[in-house]
């Protein structure tokens, strides 16, 4: 923690960055994103299990961009998000400094995306045991029960778009959901529209998802929406061996192909 604050302070003092994106603890137990802009404020930074936001989400926000060059407290998922943003040309090679935390005990300052990629090579990219178990459980259910499960879950969706807002990959200025010519998906919170919304989200994240699961944590009514994106991303990894957030090179699984892609259902 101290090391993190020191590093942040140094960067701000040196003027290398204008803002450090991290987590703060306004009150016991609560953790929320904070934008530290003065060396003194660096003391507010915390990093622990409670910090679940994928802070990379803020890198593409115009309001944040206006603050100047950022450093960002970066868990592996944040780092992957940064690479994916790089691949999608939303983040330039040296546009943000990453303060890599997490698996590595000490903080590592990664000034460029190439540095991030190098660092990530040493960090295993695996799905949490809990998520994997849940995905397996659902996949094992008979179709009818799976349908029932999602009908019940998605039935509670308010279409508040918290999942979208919390996702580092949902930076699009106009989401399909906001597209009204044609109105692909009905606006109202509605059984069918909800299903369509979450299918669209999953499809749009397949091959781009960094599997941080933030969308699930962000849901105010506790729908495990992250399972859908995790599953879609998993499908891509399984079939095409490509991963979201693997590198800053544009290698999107769904706009590339191999002539020998395997499939068993096309007759």
């Amino acid at each position, binding site marked *: 923690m101290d090391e993190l604050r020191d590093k942040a302070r140094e960067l701000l003092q040196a003027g290398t960055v204008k803002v450090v994106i991290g987590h703060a603890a306004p009150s016991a137990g609560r953790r929320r994103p904070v934008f530290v802009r003065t060396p003194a404020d660096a003391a507010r930074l915390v990093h622990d299990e409670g910090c679940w936001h994928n802070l990379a989400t803020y890198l593409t926000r115009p309001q944040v961009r206006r603050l100047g060059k950022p450093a960002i407290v970066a868990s592996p998922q944040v780092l992957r998000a940064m690479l994916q943003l790089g691949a*999608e*040309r*939303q983040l330039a090679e040296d546009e943000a400094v990453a303060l890599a935390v997490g698996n590595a005990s000490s903080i590592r300052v990664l000034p460029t995306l190439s540095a991030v990629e190098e660092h990530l090579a040493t960090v295993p990219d695996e799905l949490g045991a809990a998520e994997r178990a849940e995905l397996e459980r659902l996949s094992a259910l008979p179709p009818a029960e799976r349908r029932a499960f999602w009908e019940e879950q998605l039935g509670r969706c308010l279409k508040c778009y918290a999942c979208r807002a919390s996702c580092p990959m949902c*930076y*699009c*200025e*106009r*989401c*399909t959901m906001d*597209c009204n*010519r*044609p109105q*692909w998906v009905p606006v109202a919170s509605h059984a069918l529209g909800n299903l369509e919304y979450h299918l669209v989200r999953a499809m*749009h994240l397949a091959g781009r998802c960094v599997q941080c699961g933030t969308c699930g944590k962000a849901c105010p009514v506790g729908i495990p929406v992250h399972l859908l994106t995790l599953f879609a991303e998993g499908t891509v990894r399984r079939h095409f061996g490509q991963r979201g957030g693997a590198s800053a090179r*544009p*290698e*999107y699984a*769904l*706009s*590339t192909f191999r002539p020998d892609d395997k499939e068993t259902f096309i007759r």
Partner: protein
Amino acid sequence: MARIGVFVCHCGENIGGTVDCAQVAEAARSLRGVVHAVDYKYMCSDPGQNLLKEAIREKRLDGVVVAACSPRMHEPTFRAAAEEAGLNGYQCEMANVREHCSWVHEKANSTTAKAIDLVHIQVEKVKRDAPLHPIRVPVSRTALVLGGGIAGIQAALDIANAGNQVILLERSPSIGGHMSQLSETFPTLDCSQCILTPRMVEVARHPNVTLYTYSELEKLEGFIGNFKATIRRRARKLDEKICNGCGVCTQKCPVKKIPDEFNEGLSQRRAIYIPFPQAVPNKPVIDTANCTFFKNGKCRACEKLCAAKAIRLDQQDEIVVREVGAVVLATGFRTMGLERFPEYGYGRHPDLIDGLKFERLASASGPTAGVIRRPSDGKIPETVVFVACAGSRDEQKGVSYCSKICCMYTAKHAMLYRHKVHGGKAYVFYMDVRAAGKNYDEFVRRAVEEDGVKYVRGRVSRIYPDRGQLVVKGVDTLLGGEPLEIRADLVVLATAVQAQQGSEEMAQKLHVSYDNHRFFAEAHPKLRPVETNTAGIFLAGACQAPRDIPESVAQASGAAAKVCGLFSRPELTREPVVAVVDRQAPPVWSSCVGCFLCRSACPYQAIEEETIRTRKGEVVKTVARVNAGLCQGCGTCVATCRTKSIDLQGFTNEQLFAEVMAI
């Protein structure tokens, strides 16, 4: 409010016999936006078309649906009719109630019901049809021909003779290519030089042809009609305009003993040299890799000796940029190196040679003045073995295909040898003789029957030196598979034809695809054999697949015809069914976020970058733009775009959505 007209065709009994056309028309009338609906016996007949035209005029229709046959059949007909009546052709749609309905279903209400649905679908589509106008792309009427072999020369001449400008680019110091190395040509045995050199001179002299020899393509940008070619003209180290080609320098240069490329290393040249007597241009070039001056700054013999004072030792490469409208790829082929044949001792033995070397030995202008002498000791070989399919049709060698020309030139070689060396023995080992072509099989028969060439059907397993000769071990599969050994003085391998050196890099430079053997890929194996998948780039000769001279020339003329067609109008018009990236008023400008994930989805590299700037010129953002010149309208990018920022004219999201909703 839309004003749609619906015209239901009976097609005699073809539709009317199964579908209740009157009911379809009546149902159509009740569709929102439809102000006119009739059924008629034959819509494609003149009266039928007039019916359509009149209705468009009188009812001021802004869209028509013709329920008749497949659009693949008559869409052009009715679009033209609509145009005549002043309606944009792209606001005419067809409901396929024949191929997709009346012909495939029994007479029943359900069939009529389906016809009504099909009409409804098209009505919803046509309501959302924007008037489209053929895309016009300006064409710069200059063609760039890459490669100065027979294919390139032929293409250049044909294009130039049609009154267009041509830039003919050749990597080596002279044009002529492989054909200039050949002795005689099958099946007529006329001298290659005699038929080729006039063409070389003609193309060089042609007022419409700019010849760039000793030059290479650095890069090619742009798209059909509007390419920008960056060319590197390598320094010959002399002033071509002043040099009169007297050749003194090439005789006096102290650096000898450089293997002569043109003679396949059978003779030697100097460091300053003219590739061959009939070279075009007939000007020397300094081989800086071997020139003493360029090694240690001394010598300058050529400079001193040149009466014309044409030597320019300080001359640098020159970069020229030219606008071209089309490109013809004619970069030719190479043959498999003998080092690929361990079973034949890697061709380390001087008397084991390939076909091109033999061509030089047999050529009157060659190092032996046309006398067949074996390289090792200059002895006239009494026995020569020719091995066909050396590498070809051999998976082990990574060549699954037939090299096509070997059967013929091997027969020619054996024939020439028999003509030149009376009493000499010529054997040909072959898999099977493929002599398909005008007078080809007759030619091979002649080799066998008149010139007594011994054809042995079998493969050669090993060739090894033994007491001054080469022992060729093979098998005669027609004589009960008896193993066979022939002691030969000279062995000639008909090595496999392979894609040109660097063809992969070339393909990437030009964004054309290539097959797994690195030959350039045609757009369609049967129907578009001289086109590539990149509009405006065409193929000629052996860079696409092994070809002989007549085929290369024919294909070159074909490619030239395509180029001339393209150049026949000042601008080319293309189907407006292309993708467009959405543009909006500030402050949005465009819903595209510039992630460019669509880029790799485009088969035609049509997706470009556009930097949007405010009036003050500050950058707002970089977004995708579809190059209408390259886009072929598949719409893959549209389905890939998350923000629905790309749409395909003629098949827009709104249209397809509405069509689905109409079902």
